[in-house]
């Protein structure tokens, strides 16, 4: 069993005291970030990534830290969903439905425990899935030529756009905007500077971290400035035990189903954690809601989406590591991080960098265990963060953003760029443009252009290469389905509704 030895090696690296400490710190800081409303995994990973340079971490250790932040932030998001009815991130919105109801009935502890245990089960499922499918898919992907890659990137971007927002066109505009940002700077193919406005500092292009922090963190501060919402009241938690064996057995099925479903959905580019949690909640409700208890504090309504969103985070690593195609905003930031450590994810990653891949996979598992043993006892401490007055919390977020952005190049110019993107992000959110496709486009733009170039050099300028292989044909069908599908569906639905309305009137 080749895979098992690799995994054992991975664990031996991840279990080094220093890496364990990093995983612990990542989970801890990540949870604190996740508890803050609106500041989720993307922002957390983006702001803290520059630290990995200053601490001179090796790639494996850096990734362990980032993975801890990622997981911690997701878990922190569900904590506030349950205790405050305030989802920390999009992926924990559904958790509020039953989680907050449970908390109001004095069952906050079982809800928090089942979220953590569900995440742990999901982590186990996704580590098995990664071991099984990761190397397999990367072996398949080795056959990909530049044309296949180009079409794959087009498909990934359109999938993400079709799922990211309410309006497909706005999501596509956001994706194209990201791609355009990627063309700023010296073109690697020809050495020609593009869209630099004569600014020397733009020759290297705009850094994805600077854009991500601006779009997500700064715009969030602006949004919060607008809402004068007072802090929500904490639900009393009751004195009872964390969770009973009966409750555990009762929700076991939901956890396993949520994990499997979440993992599969997570592997699809664009689907990611928020969709998987939503889908698995709906499915669980269909399957198990015999007594109409869902939405009224059913523990399975917490177990299913919480397992699913964590499994999706594991599943999202598969396209990221094997194809170099991130499936979500957070994995796009992880991809950018990998690239700036001179590690190019893709089919060769498993072969060339087993010293990075397997410790990362192992550390995700360790991160899960840490969340389980560390966060449950400390959960009420984390929630206390929300009682810090907003006038100190939000400026602190801004200052940490400044430090993160400044650290990328030691250049105050990046703070200007970040501020500009903060304003752009605010306007985009006001107008219902999703932000994640921008980051994705920015990270994927260079890859896309390079593969376009390589493909057309191979084919001597003939576009037919993009339609030559069965895989590219299949991917074009996906693109078409994704872009035309929702529009057609809504037409059909509208037409049907009109028929129903007309019949009702008769």
């Amino acid at each position, binding site marked *: 069993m080749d895979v098992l030895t690799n995994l054992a090696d991975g664990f031996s690296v991840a279990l080094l005291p220093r890496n364990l400490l990093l995983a612990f710190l990542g989970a801890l800081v990540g949870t604190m970030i996740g508890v803050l409303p609106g500041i989720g995994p993307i922002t957390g990973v983006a702001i803290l990534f520059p630290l990995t340079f200053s601490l001179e971490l090796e790639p494996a250790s850096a990734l362990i830290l980032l993975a801890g932040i990622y997981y911690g932030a997701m878990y922190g998001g569900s904590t506030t969903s349950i205790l405050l009815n305030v989802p920390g991130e999009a992926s924990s919105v559904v958790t509020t439905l039953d989680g907050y109801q449970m908390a109001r009935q004095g069952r906050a502890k079982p809800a928090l425990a089942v979220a953590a245990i569900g995440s742990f089960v999901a982590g186990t499922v996704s580590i098995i899935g990664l071991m099984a499918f990761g190397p397999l898919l990367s072996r398949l992907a080795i056959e990909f030529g530049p044309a296949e890659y180009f079409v794959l990137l087009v498909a990934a971007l359109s999938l993400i756009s079709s799922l990211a927002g309410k309006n497909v066109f706005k999501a596509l505009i956001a994706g194209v905007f990201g791609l355009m940002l990627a063309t700023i700077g010296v073109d690697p193919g020809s050495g020609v500077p593009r869209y630099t406005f004569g600014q020397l500092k733009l020759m290297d292009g705009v850094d994805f971290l600077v854009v991500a922090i601006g779009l997500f963190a700064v715009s969030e501060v602006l949004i919060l400035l607008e809402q004068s919402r007072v802090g929500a009241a904490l639900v009393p938690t009751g004195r009872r035990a964390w969770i009973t064996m009966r409750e555990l057995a009762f929700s076991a099925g939901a956890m396993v189903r949520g994990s499997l479903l979440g993992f599969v959905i997570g592997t699809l580019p664009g689907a990611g954690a928020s969709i998987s949690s939503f889908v698995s909640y709906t499915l669980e409700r269909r399957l198990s809601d015999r007594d109409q208890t869902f939405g009224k504090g059913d523990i399975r309504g917490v177990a299913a989406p919480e397992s699913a969103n964590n499994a999706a985070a594991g599943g999202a690593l598969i396209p990221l590591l094997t194809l170099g195609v991130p499936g979500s905003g957070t994995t796009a930031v992880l991809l950018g991080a990998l690239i700036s450590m001179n590690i190019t994810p893709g089919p060769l990653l498993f072969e060339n960098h087993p010293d990075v891949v397997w410790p990362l996979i192992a550390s995700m598992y360790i991160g899960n265990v840490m969340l389980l043993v560390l966060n449950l006892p400390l959960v009420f401490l984390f929630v206390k963060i929300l009682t810090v*007055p907003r*006038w100190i919390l939000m400026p602190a977020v*801004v200052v940490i953003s400044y430090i993160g952005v400044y650290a990328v190049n030691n250049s105050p110019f990046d703070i200007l760029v970040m501020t500009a993107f903060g304003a752009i992000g605010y306007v985009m959110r006001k107008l219902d443009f999703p932000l994640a496709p921008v980051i994705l486009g920015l990270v994927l733009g260079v890859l896309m252009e390079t593969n376009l170039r390589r493909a057309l050099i191979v084919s001597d300028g003939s576009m037919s290469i993009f339609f030559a292989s069965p895989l590219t044909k299949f991917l074009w069908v996906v693109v078409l389905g994704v872009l035309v599908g929702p529009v057609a569906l809504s037409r059909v639905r509208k037409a049907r509704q009109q028929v129903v309305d007309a019949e009702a009137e008769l």
Partner: protein
Amino acid sequence: MADRITGAVLLVVAAWYTAESRSFEGGALAGPVGPGAFPLFLGVVLGVLSLYLLVRPDPRPTWPHRSMWLSGGTVVASSLAYAYALVPLGFLVATTVELVVLGSLFRARLRSVIPAALALSLATFWLFDRFLKLPLPEGLVG
């Protein structure tokens, strides 16, 4: 209406971006795909998408409240000023001032925001510069 304005702005951006892409020369190195080809493609796609937005806007996007223009504008302006002041003034001074400005926007009283800003900038400076070895500009006080 908001969407139509956005569509129009994006159309102008797309036109400028596309026009600019025609001016890139020296593509001999790059083979059949010169430096302008990919941008040209993107510009055209954005143009088409923004036309669609012009023709079929979303029904009712919400505009920011009027008071937001002032406070949001202050955040942006102070942040830009911070970028220029950071190196000459140093992290501690620039950050303390910025924290006071931002804290006041979130309706804090000066009496409480000034000591908090001072403490927070000292703490972050110590944490990141001294402890995590992420060099921050020292400027006036280091």
